[in-house]
């Protein structure tokens, strides 16, 4: 369970201060699927970064199974991101010099797995998502949809508790987007929590709960 308690995030840009999030509070239960909606600049991505331990709140707390993320050092945060979180980005963010299989294996290698074990697990994941023919392909040799499938497989490499997806279908056509959403449905069924940042209502529909953020504040928190 992840608990967001009165989290505020303020960015300093020179002498100008910008409040990206203002006193946000909510809880994500284990295995829950949550869509975070809101217009551009509303603070959605900031919230996702905080949930993923990529950023720390200016005030407030983010508790993961009771542990305060703000108190984590770099090593603990890195381990948290590696083991507990899986990221899926709008622009896929695969390493261009690694093959599909190697990209999926990276989180496992970071976790300390041997190369052989990591590559074997990567192959299984890619096979699950219909990418077995693309194991040795470099990202530039794959379509956007294929790359995003690899990215989702990568996010699941260490069997995380939660997937954080930031506009995962933002750069995909409708068919590919549907494919990714179908993958998300499978993930949810497996009991992995899914938090999707999106401004696409079609994506929100795949999640049981929706939080709407506007100007850094939660304006709506609704279960389906």
């Amino acid at each position, binding site marked *: 369970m992840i608990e967001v308690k009165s989290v505020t995030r303020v960015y300093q840009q020179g002498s100008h201060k910008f409040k990206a999030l203002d006193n946000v509070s909510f809880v994500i239960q284990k295995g829950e699927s949550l869509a975070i909606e809101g217009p551009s600049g509303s603070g959605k991505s900031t919230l996702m*970064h905080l949930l*993923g331990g*990529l*950023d720390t709140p200016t005030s407030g707390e983010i508790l993961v199974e009771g542990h305060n993320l703000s108190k984590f050092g*770099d*090593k603990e945060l*890195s*381990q*948290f*991101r*590696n*083991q507990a*979180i899986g*990221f899926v*980005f709008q*622009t896929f*963010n*695969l*390493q*261009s*010099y*690694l093959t599909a299989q*190697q990209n999926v294996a*990276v*989180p496992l*290698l*970071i*976790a*300390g797995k041997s*190369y052989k074990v990591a590559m074997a697990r990567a192959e299984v994941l890619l096979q699950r998502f219909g990418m077995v023919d693309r194991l040795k392909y*470099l990202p530039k040799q794959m379509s956007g949809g294929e790359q995003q499938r690899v990215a989702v497989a*990568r996010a699941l490499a*260490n069997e995380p508790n939660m997937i954080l997806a930031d506009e995962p279908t933002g750069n995909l056509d409708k068919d590919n987007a549907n494919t990714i959403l179908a993958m998300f449905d499978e993930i949810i069924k497996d009991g992995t929590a899914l938090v999707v940042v999106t401004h696409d209502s079609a994506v929100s529909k795949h999640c049981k709960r929706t939080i709407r953020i506007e100007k850094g504040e939660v304006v709506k928190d609704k279960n389906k």
Partner: protein
Amino acid sequence: MSFWQILVINFKKLFFYKSKALFLVIPMAILVALGLIIVSETSNIRSAAQGMIVGTVEEQNRVLELSKNPMANLPGGTSTSGGAVRMVSFNADPTQNGYNQKDQDAVSAIAGVQKASILQALNVNQMASSDLFAGKKVSLMSFQGLDSAFASKYTSSDFSYQDGQPIPVILNASGFIEEYEQWNGKQDMEMTFPKAAAINAGSTAASGMVTSGTSATINANGSDGANPFPNQQRAVNFDKNTLIGKVFTVDIGGLQAGQDFSTTPTETGLKFHKYTTEELAATDKKQSDAIAPYWDYAKIKAPISYKFKVVGIVEDGAMSYVPPAALNKIQHDYYQHQIDARTTKAIDKALLGSTFLGQNYDGVSFKQDIFSMMGGGATLSTGMMGSAVAVSSTTTAVAVGGASLGGPPGALTSYTIPGLIISVKRTDSSVQGEIKDLSFLSTVPVIGDTMEIKINSIYDRPAVVEAMNQAGYGFQDNSKTNIFRDLQRNLSLATWGFSLAFVVLSIILIGFVMSKFVSEGKREIGVYRALGMSKDKIRALFFWQALVLTVIGYGVGVLVGIVSIKLISAPMHTWFVDVLGKSIKDAFNVVNPVSNSQFSLIDFATFKIHSVILLVITLVIALIPADTAANTSPIEAMRGE
């Protein structure tokens, strides 16, 4: 993530971003290649320069040469070896002008002097070799005995005399002069002098000896054509490389061949007539008739021969050097040869010192006969120190005791007998008789106009020179070996300068390129951070990236450097010989040749230091961008996509 996995990722990055990697690899390779070339070639130049001189600079500077008795008109000219201006005396009375045992002892006693030795000259009438240069007969400069302690200045070979073995000789190239006659197919030639010219009696003009194209004295002013004299001389071209190690024969002594032409004064100049075979036979018979009653003519006429081996070449001064033991043996044999050729007929005292000239011994000094020194028309041939000289056998042009050329026909003819020793009274120089017992030679005082001095260390040189001057042995220390020290210093400066540039350039190159890699790799860093890679691993990733690229650049650079050194060795050799080698030759008496292969040597030993420096620089400099990468905010990094 393990170290090997990080390396694998770096190699994958390297192969994927080949052109980007070359930004570091190529400049690094160039830097390393240049480093190897400069380090190796400065080392090669230093070694070549050192190898050119015999022994070491230190060894060269430990030997000083002190001389006195400046006399002009010596074909060898002056020697400036070791800082002393040396002129070899000729026709001087050594008891008045030479260094003696007291001088040798006094210099030996100076603090810092290891050894002092007066150079003794070989007193013979002539020396020549027909096989030193194929097809040419060259007269050789006289020999001086040189202790092996001093020979290291001229040769690194063994300089000891072994009975039965060729005698080692440090040969003076100044004497590589071939004499020949040029008649242009004629039997007679004439030379006209300008009206204002005057030929002095006893001048060398009478000999008809001139040189062609050499530095020796030109006789007879006012010749109206190019070199009208029959006797010519020319320098023999030689290659030091082929001469060193050569074994050759030297003929010493024997009766000097009479001039094979006559010289007759005319109203306007001189007339030369080449003797016919019959005339030559007649001249020889006259000589034989005079000599044969007292000596076995064939025996006294023939020279004695020795085998020598060239161990060094000297290009200035006038003397060649042999071991003292060899010199003493030859000298003894020279005199003994005359004694052995003697018949039982006694020589009238009136003939000794007039008709028959030799060397005079008065119980103290041992020198050539005074008559051969007179300017009374006796002809002189050059180059022989302390010995009697050849006298022309022409009856009209030469007269002993005559005051001018063209003395009365039938004038007394004198012969120089090689090895004849005449006892004279010291007080009035009156002839006492022949000396046939050579045991007195061991009692003859050591006299010479040149003294070699070896000092303990080059650091003692200034103090020894000062002490010598204080003791009355004037020595101007104009050592030219500074050129060598300057060269070494400049090479060291160049090497240090490059090393510094190498360090600075390496720092700039690695720092700049790696910073660029980090700034361009922000997205990559952000992704790895999002996937859970810690700062330490990010730091390691970029640190090893710098190291891998540097090592690859280093390897390529070493290969390129090795190939380049091989390719430039020939031009380097040419440059060295033509430019630097010339300066070194000017500073030293004897130089060894430098081989082409000297400049293809690679100084890995010194380059190891540069390699270590490069490694340390890489380790230190690479940490900076690696640290920047590690501290890059993952959000900021991914925002840059």
